[in-house]
């Protein structure tokens, strides 16, 4: 039998309900593994051991009374940009070091209500800005497959925690690929839901029109299960959708026979690692073998996505990060002579390099005289990118692409070259600009023995078909079963 820490959520559910193991035992096993492995990985900013144990005891009481939700007693890790009442939420930034929110965000509150065990808060690129989790004020997270390499980012802590069996599942946030790219680089499943599917209340904002919380899990069924738990209208988030949430598990295993898979030509280009492209092509073949019809499509505005994204996202970020001013909470510089100096010194000392770079870019894009040329133009390009997808989805049900152009890269390799780092998200960014759902599933290993991910993109609010396609692929292959040796 596999170690309990290696179980999927649905495996653990069956064993918890069958009385094979208690939530307390399962939680202890996870905490013990964290204690053993965390020093090498640094997936967590905070491990909430006492809270997890108390939640596990409460979960056992519920299980005894058969008051069970799919997540009752399941050990989950939360990216450290989700507000958790009384538990430090610092976004891996010095400016929020020691900050304990006075409230729970909607997603953490839903997990708690379902009886989940929250193990801790995972590391990220500061304020979710980055693709490697190296931009953390509290040290980089290491890829469990090769500790000299980065886990991707910005949800690198969550992806590494799932890959290293430090939790059964985790939540991340995805603004330009921050769930899917680290999932790809760590060999786990990562799903970005449709914009509006999951409440953003309590998610510390990076780029409000792009951010979305989603699951990182060991298999596709777990992703469906975790997505079900967090989806749906929230009166506290005006941008959350009132559309009914379908039963993702009910259609999960329907197969891909009759589905049409589109392969966008613009995503299979030079510049991407040939091993990555080969693995994804093999994945497309596997879907065809499972009964899907495959056809080539075009998304002609793909080339503008990165430029468009770095205007929209930085503009919104420059606005969202205005509240960190040293006045009400977080880091305040000491010894300032006046208000202006206090502001400047607090922000200078509180933010890291990449965050400052993006605040400056965004401030510039919104400035009087530049707004039309940059921000407004970017919004127009965004519309064109969305129309590309809408046109493609008239003839296909899902699109399949690589998740990231390369596998895991060595720590330090790209930190000196921000543009090179930005290109890590070249295949994921368009999806956020268009607000669509997409999943990354493991589809093989590269020459360095590190995982490669395949991305499945769906129509708006059609996570069900995305999950169904990903599940069918998973059944046809064994890639998701590969584990790093730790």
């Amino acid at each position, binding site marked *: 039998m596999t170690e309990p820490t290696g179980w999927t959520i649905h495996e653990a559910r069956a064993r918890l309900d069958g009385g094979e193991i208690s939530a307390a035992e399962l939680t202890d096993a996870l905490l013990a593994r964290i204690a053993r492995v965390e020093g090498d990985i640094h997936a967590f900013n905070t491990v909430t051991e006492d809270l997890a144990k108390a939640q596990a005891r409460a979960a056992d009481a519920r299980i005894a009374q058969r008051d069970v939700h799919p997540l009752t007693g399941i050990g989950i890790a939360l990216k450290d940009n989700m507000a958790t009442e009384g538990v430090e939420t610092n976004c891996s930034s010095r400016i929020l070091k020691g900050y304990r929110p*006075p409230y729970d*965000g909607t997603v953490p509150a839903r997990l708690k209500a379902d009886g989940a065990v929250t193990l801790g808060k995972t590391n990220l690129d500061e304020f979710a800005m980055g693709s490697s989790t190296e931009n953390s004020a509290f040290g980089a997270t290491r890829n469990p497959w090769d500790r000299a390499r980065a886990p991707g980012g910005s949800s690198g802590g969550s992806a590494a925690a799932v890959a290293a069996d430090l939790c059964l599942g985790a939540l991340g946030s995805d603004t330009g690929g921050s769930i899917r790219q680290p999932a790809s680089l760590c060999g786990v499943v990562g799903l970005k839901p449709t914009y509006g599917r999951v409440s953003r209340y309590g998610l510390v904002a990076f780029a409000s029109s792009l951010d979305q919380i989603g699951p990182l899990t060991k298999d596709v069924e777990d992703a469906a299960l975790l997505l079900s738990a967090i989806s749906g209208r929230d009166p*506290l988030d005006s941008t959350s959708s009132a559309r009914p949430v379908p039963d993702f598990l009910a259609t999960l295993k329907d197969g891909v026979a009759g589905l049409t898979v589109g392969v966008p030509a613009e995503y299979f280009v030079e510049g991407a690692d040939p091993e990555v492209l080969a693995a994804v092509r093999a994945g497309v073949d596997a879907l065809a073998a499972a009964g899907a019809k495959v056809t080539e499509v075009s998304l002609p505005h793909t080339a503008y996505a990165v430029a468009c994204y770095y205007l929209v996202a930085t503009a919104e970020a420059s606005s969202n990060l205005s509240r960190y001013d040293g006045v009400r909470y977080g880091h305040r510089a000491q010894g300032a002579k006046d208000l202006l100096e206090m502001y400047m010194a607090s922000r200078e000392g509180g933010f890291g390099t990449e965050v400052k770079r993006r605040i400056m870019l965004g401030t510039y894009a919104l400035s009087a005289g530049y707004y039309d040329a940059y921000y407004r133009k970017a919004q127009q390009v965004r519309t064109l990118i969305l129309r590309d997808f809408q046109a493609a989805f008239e003839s296909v049900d899902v699109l399949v692409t690589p998740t990231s152009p390369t596998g895991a890269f060595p720590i330090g390799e790209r930190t000196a070259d921000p543009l090179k780092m930005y290109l890590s998200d070249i295949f994921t960014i368009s999806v956020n600009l268009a607000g669509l759902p997409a999943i990354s599933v493991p589809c093989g290993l590269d020459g360095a023995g590190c995982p490669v991910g395949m991305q499945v993109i769906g129509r708006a609010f059609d996570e069900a078909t995305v999950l169904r396609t990903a599940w069918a692929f998973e059944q046809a292959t064994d890639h998701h079963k590969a584990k790093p040796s730790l």
Partner: protein
Amino acid sequence: MEYEAVIGLEVHCQLATRSKIFCGCATTFGQPPNSQTCPICLGHPGVLPVLNRQAVAYTIRAGLATHGVIQSSSVFARKHYFYPDLPKGYQISQYDKPIIDGGYVEIVTDAGPKRIGLTRIHMEEDAGKNLHEGLESVSHVDLNRAGVPLIEIVSEPDLRTSDEAVAYLKKLRDIVVYLGVCDGNMEEGNLRCDANVSLRPKGQEAFGTKVEMKNMNSFRFLKAAVEYEMKRQAQVLDRGGTVIQETRLWDTKRGVTESMRSKEEAHDYRYMPEPDLLPVVVDPAWVEAVRNEMPELPDAKRERFVASYGLSEYDAEVLTASQALADFFEKSVAAFDGDPKLTCNWVMGELMARLNQDGTSIEACPLTPEQLAGLVGAIHGGTISGKIAKTVFGHLYGSNKTAEQVIEAEGLVQVSDTGAIDAIIAEVISAHPNEAADYRGGKDKLLGFFVGQVMKQTQGKANPKLVNERLRAMLSA
């Protein structure tokens, strides 16, 4: 040179909603600092705004009352600047797509009525307050007011004098208070006003350079500040100088405006659409629902009072100056509708005088509209004379009796019995033979003397009309 002023006002009204515009916190004035705050209005990481629909309904009300066009879709925007009383580092406001477009209000000037155009009305959140008093080397921040809903009403540059500016602001205040959307209390800051003032040589079409003035917290200060600024700009121009485009602050204590910041130092607010809120969609059904629950406005009410009660323009104007006074009048007329003009005279005359004397408001009036209706009915029906009515009024005011009960208890019923009056007249004539003879000899003025004598005998209760009639007949006999 002779100049003409061009003035436009930007008026901020705090909406009288119970909760804030983007969270559930209360909006009560004067509570302990930061007692009416939550993670949302404190701008904690991760929070999101949710729009208060009542604030939108109130804004639509203000738009309808000022003849604006209610936009079916409007957009909130972020206005960025750093200040400790602004928790998020931006104010959620509306920028290029406000909820109300255009409109006007009418003011009365010496030259007659004048329409003042409105550019727009938009919604936004208020900021908190920095506290400095009694503190050394630190300031405190009170965020109770942060997130209180505001509307900003922007006028066209249609005002030409300080008096027009004051008349316009008073009219706006009347409207929003009448509508129940704003308390209109300038001292508590729930009505605030900025003014844009420029001068141009009389007869010139093109506008001069404008100066924005802030911090005029009363009608008096608005008038004084506009006049000061007109004088200051005229002096600059007369010396051959140019007016600098800038923002100036009115110094209440010294009675002058002082430069606050120049155009070059003006903030770049970096407006952007608020991504956390959807566009505000107002469908025609919502507009109609708001229209249906709107109170009648002073102008419409005034016209109706003239048309349906036969009142003069002046009377109607006075009665409709306050909703409560107009309501009192209408309730009284509803209880006795035989003589609305007489009811009006009593409300504006005896009742207002007594309320003023007691320092009581019409809202707390110790006389009910029904009591007054009984009194007016008794006068109109000839039961009592106007003079006796004043005595009855004195008994009614503050009591729970009806006019009928007072008249009967005090024996104040008017004597209209010809027999009884004739007997008294005969008595009076025989008691004053000389005067009677003089009257008959042509001294008509003596009739008043005889009326006085008869009224004295009847303690004022005799019907004066009848007394006159009978006296003339019996003296001539």
